[in-house]
């Protein structure tokens, strides 16, 4: 049997298999589907943060040209699943996900309270303005700082003492407090909104009374299928979910949201297909966000740079109707050797919509505080922060007391330090200049669980020698289809050009949602299994029918470039296509499932990243330029260095946004956002993004899965924001602990 790296498909910077479709506009996104008889729906959002709908005057809207229906809580078709206590939804929080037009209650400003359906989008938009809603307003609480005393331990943790969100103590609780050398600082990040390029959209079509098809922007094809089947009390197989292309999501497609149900209701009511596309403003309140978070880190160390204790507390915002939680403090529990570690996580319900995971969920928030605090402590003891991290490196998971499956963080750190020119970093902040500009260097480490889930892949080998693989997974941008083709090419012994990977449909075998950096590990393993099964089938076919291969088994055969051969018998060489043709088979098909085994009880598995930033700050005007970023990742085998590099670059740009530009502002008198478009919510633009160099350790983690991969999506952003904040400190001597770091904070 040949070594895994024998064939060289995996690891190549192959162009995206769908690149041409994407750049020519041939790729079809959910809002681009046109069905006969299509209608258009526009949502009306509440303008109060809390209270009840007193009256709804829809006459004008209903009489407007082209309007087919105006639906709201009193006349909307009943959703059978809504009568149950809770309807299925990811994540599974404690509480009740918002139900579209369920009753007269208003839980947040911008909540959908009505939907207008018309024959054209313009007419629906116009009529939506004509819907007059009056409210009975109640006093709302939206201000995090003013309400912070109401934070509590999530109910899930209260109910289960073993729940990971419970307080964690290793060694002595809050041991830093009694140490000689210690720091204690607070860190704040504002609410951030995913704002992918593509707006959330759905085309809902009842093909029969109990048969629903949706073209939906989602990261969870199967999750969405199950949710709507349950909501509408119809068999799962009667719900078809299509999400062939997704124009970025960053997490907000991991949930089913009320606007989707609104479109499905509307389609039921008007008995025609309904297209509903959120506005950019609606993207701020209807599809989740990264929650505002307050954190406090206490840390103590010895003068020679050993961390002796860390206490990390976090409070994250959630809504009044659902407990959204995320893993903000995990990195603190396992990243450094500190004998004493305490973590405390709380949530604070406010009269706002429910957050959802956003790229690097929890950990990106937590790493901002932890990795800033590391830098602060290194400064206190006068040690290079890279050296400080090296001295506290963990060779074994101190939380679970398990060996790492693989960990090459030290190599990544050395690699990055060299590439950024870390030796140029001044030990004393504010002492390096380039003309008028102050220059600084900073670093931040990121980690995320190397997750893997259960996935199934179907593979069909045709008698022309091509293979089609299918799985319900989506591709929200990382190049999933491309990576899967490469993995198949590698494991099948077939040129990538002969392989097609079809995804984004509930008609294909199931996969987990595309979140948590787990797709390549989960689906890639199923592709691996399916390819091995196909090889097995081919081996059986030739062994049974071809004299030259008599008695051959898959492990004795070589599969290469669409041929299988027997090393011992040079004449025994036949193409995959001919194997089928000789047996008059049009195709052979296998479906294989792959799932993690008990290796997860024996090893602790994480991906790692380290980010280095060089920033320039103008002392007079506070202008900040990120001059360079170097990101290095230990993420197992890199299937495609181009698409993986692309993901890392995207994460770094996201990190620039987190550090310097992004954040929503709410006017708490109204409980309403006042920065809610792309002009006022500052996603970084090209001019904010410097040269970003990406390097991979690229060593397989074969304990994690047979392809040796670990996830990249999250670690691409986790640790970037503190790297930049630390660089700003190094440049200026100013420590900004509340993001984003805008010019006004530096003058």
């Amino acid at each position, binding site marked *: 049997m040949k070594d895994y790296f024998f064939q060289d498909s995996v690891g190549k910077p192959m162009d995206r298999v769908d690149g041409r479709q994407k750049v020519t506009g041939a790729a079809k996104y959910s809002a681009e589907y046109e069905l006969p008889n299509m209608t258009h729906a526009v949502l009306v959002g509440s303008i109060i943060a809390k209270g009840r709908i007193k009256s709804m005057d829809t006459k004008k809207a209903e009489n407007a040209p082209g309007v087919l229906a105006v639906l709201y809580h009193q006349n909307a078709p009943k959703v059978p699943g809504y009568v149950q206590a809770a309807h299925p939804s990811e994540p599974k929080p404690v509480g009740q996900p918002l139900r579209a037009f369920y009753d007269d209650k208003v839980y947040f400003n911008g909540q959908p309270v009505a939907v207008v359906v018309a024959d054209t989008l313009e007419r629906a*938009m116009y009529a939506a303005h004509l819907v007059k809603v009056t409210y009975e307003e109640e006093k709302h609480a939206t201000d995090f700082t003013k309400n912070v005393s109401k934070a509590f331990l999530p109910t899930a943790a209260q109910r289960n003492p073993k729940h990971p969100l419970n307080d964690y103590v290793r060694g002595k609780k809050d041991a830093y407090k009694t140490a000689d050398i210690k720091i204690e600082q607070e860190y704040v990040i504002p609410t951030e909104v995913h704002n992918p390029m593509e707006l959330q959209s759905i085309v809902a079509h009842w093909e029969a009374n109990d048969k629903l098809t949706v073209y939906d922007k989602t990261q969870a094809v199967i999750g969405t299928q199950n949710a709507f089947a349950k909501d509408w009390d119809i068999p799962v197989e009667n719900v078809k979910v299509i999400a062939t292309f997704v124009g970025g999501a960053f997490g907000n497609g991991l949930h089913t949201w009320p606007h989707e149900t609104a479109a499905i209701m509307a389609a039921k009511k008007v008995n025609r297909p309904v297209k509903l596309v959120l506005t950019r403003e609606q993207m701020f309140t209807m599809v989740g966000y990264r929650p505002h978070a307050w954190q406090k880190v206490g840390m103590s160390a010895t003068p020679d740079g050993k961390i002796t204790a860390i206490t990390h507390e976090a409070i994250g915002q959630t809504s009044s109707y659902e407990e959204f939680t995320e893993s903000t403090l995990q990195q603190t529990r396992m990243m450094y050797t500190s004998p004493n570690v305490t973590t405390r996580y709380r949530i604070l319900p406010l009269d706002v919509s429910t957050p959802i995971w956003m790229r690097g969920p929890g950990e990106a928030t937590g790493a901002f505080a932890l990795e800033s605090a590391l830098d602060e402590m290194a400064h206190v003891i006068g040690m290079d922060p890279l050296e400080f991290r090296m001295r506290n490196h963990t060779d074994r998971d101190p939380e679970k007391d398990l060996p790492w499956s693989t960990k090459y963080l030290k190599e990544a750190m050395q690699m990055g330090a060299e590439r950024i020119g870390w030796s140029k970093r001044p030990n004393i902040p504010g002492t390096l200049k380039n003309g008028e500009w102050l220059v600084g260097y900073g670093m931040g480490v990121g980690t995320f669980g190397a997750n893997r889930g259960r996935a199934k892949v179907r593979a069909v080998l045709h008698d022309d020698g091509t293979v089609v693989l299918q799985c319900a997974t989506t591709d929200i941008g990382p190049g999933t289809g491309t990576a899967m083709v490469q993995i198949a090419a590698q494991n099948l012994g077939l040129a990538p050009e002969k392989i097609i990977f079809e995804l984004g449909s509930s008609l294909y075998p199931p996969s987990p949602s595309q979140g948590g950096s787990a797709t390549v590990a989960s689906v890639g393993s199923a592709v691996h299994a399916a390819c091995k099964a196909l090889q097995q089938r081919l081996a059986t076919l030739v062994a049974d029918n071809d004299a030259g291969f008599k008695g051959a088994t898959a492990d004795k055969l070589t599969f290469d470039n669409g041929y299988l051969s027997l090393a011992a018998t040079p004449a025994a060489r036949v193409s995959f296509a001919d194997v089928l043709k000789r047996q008059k088979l049009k195709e052979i098909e296998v479906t294989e499932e792959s799932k993690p085994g008990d290796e997860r009880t024996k090893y602790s598995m994480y991906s790692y990243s380290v980010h280095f930033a060089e920033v320039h700050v103008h002392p007079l*005007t506070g202008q900040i330029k990120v001059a360079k970023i170097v990101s290095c990742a230990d993420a197992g085998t890199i299937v495609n260095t181009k698409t993986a590099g692309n993901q890392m670059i995207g994460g770094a740009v996201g990190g620039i946004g987190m550090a310097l530009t992004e954040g929503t*502002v709410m006017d708490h008198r109204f409980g309403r956002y006042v920065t809610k478009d792309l002009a006022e919510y500052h996603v970084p633009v090209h*001019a*904010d993004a410097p040269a970003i160099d990406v390097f991979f350790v690229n060593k397989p983690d074969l304990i994690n899965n047979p392809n040796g991969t670990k996830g990249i999506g999250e670690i691409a952003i986790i640790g970037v924001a503190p790297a930049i904040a630390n660089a700003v400190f190094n440049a200026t001597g100013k420590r900004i602990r509340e993001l984003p770091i805008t010019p006004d904070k530096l003058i």
Partner: protein
Amino acid sequence: MNQFQYVQPAKSKAAIDTVTKDQTAMFIAGGTNLLDLMKRGIVTPEKLVDINKLPLKKIQKENGAVRIGALALNGETAEDKLVLEKHPLLSQALNAGASAQLRNMATVGGNMLQRTRCPYFYDTALPCNKREPGTGCGALEGYNRMHAIFGHSEKCIAVHPSDMSVALAALDATVLVSGPKGDRKIPFADFHRLPGDTPHIETNLQKGELILAVDLPENPYTKNIHYLKIRDRASYAFALISVAAALDLDGSNIRSARLAMGGVAHKPWRLTEAENFLAGKPATETTFRQAADLAMRGAKAFEHNKFKLKLGPNAIVQALKNAAGVA
């Protein structure tokens, strides 16, 4: 967006007549701001008079001045040879505004008329005297980080968002308009208004008056100029503070100066006192700092924009340093 009629006259007179007679009619050129406002239901014209067919696109010399047609695009104006040669400050200001895509749609006349980006103005669910007189100023005790420090009133503390107009103010531009009562010239300083009690009236244009062109008189500010824009991201963001600085230098001495600020008032804010102070002084950081302090007299900030009291003078100093080449 409400339903509206659309006409595209070929002659200025027809366009002016239509807008003069029809209370609800509005001119539209690039539409980069107007369409946004219509989509949000902030303005609801029942007739749009598209002026893009009118011959108002040229940039040419006229009696020693550079005349820029109202329909010249921001992008092409910024790159125009005559503008670059005679008024490079305008070119810099234009390129600091919006994004390349917007600059390729937006016109010079439209740019002057763009409405404030105050979030209360843009959200029909929130109070705003500019949008709906009498409802109150949402920003006064609300989120006012982007707001005015000069010339505001209790009725409105919004700022004018244009970069281009800051340069036009510094360069003593004149606006040529044509209306039902004939043609007239408006000095740029008198074109925009302060909010006072009528923040909904932003310019001194009369109903039906159409901007034909902007004249920029010959001046010596072709070399020592700088448009400095401080903003929250490197491109496509409105100014926290911007400064248009132009110097006429005699060696290391200042013969004369032109200075205007953006992001600080309801109109582009010309700094005449500071200009007068600079004339005849040496081009040093000390002089610039004194001029900046003078310029900031009378500034009054609100809860979230206090930083402008410090960023303002710093930006003036830096813009002057850059203009003088002493940075």
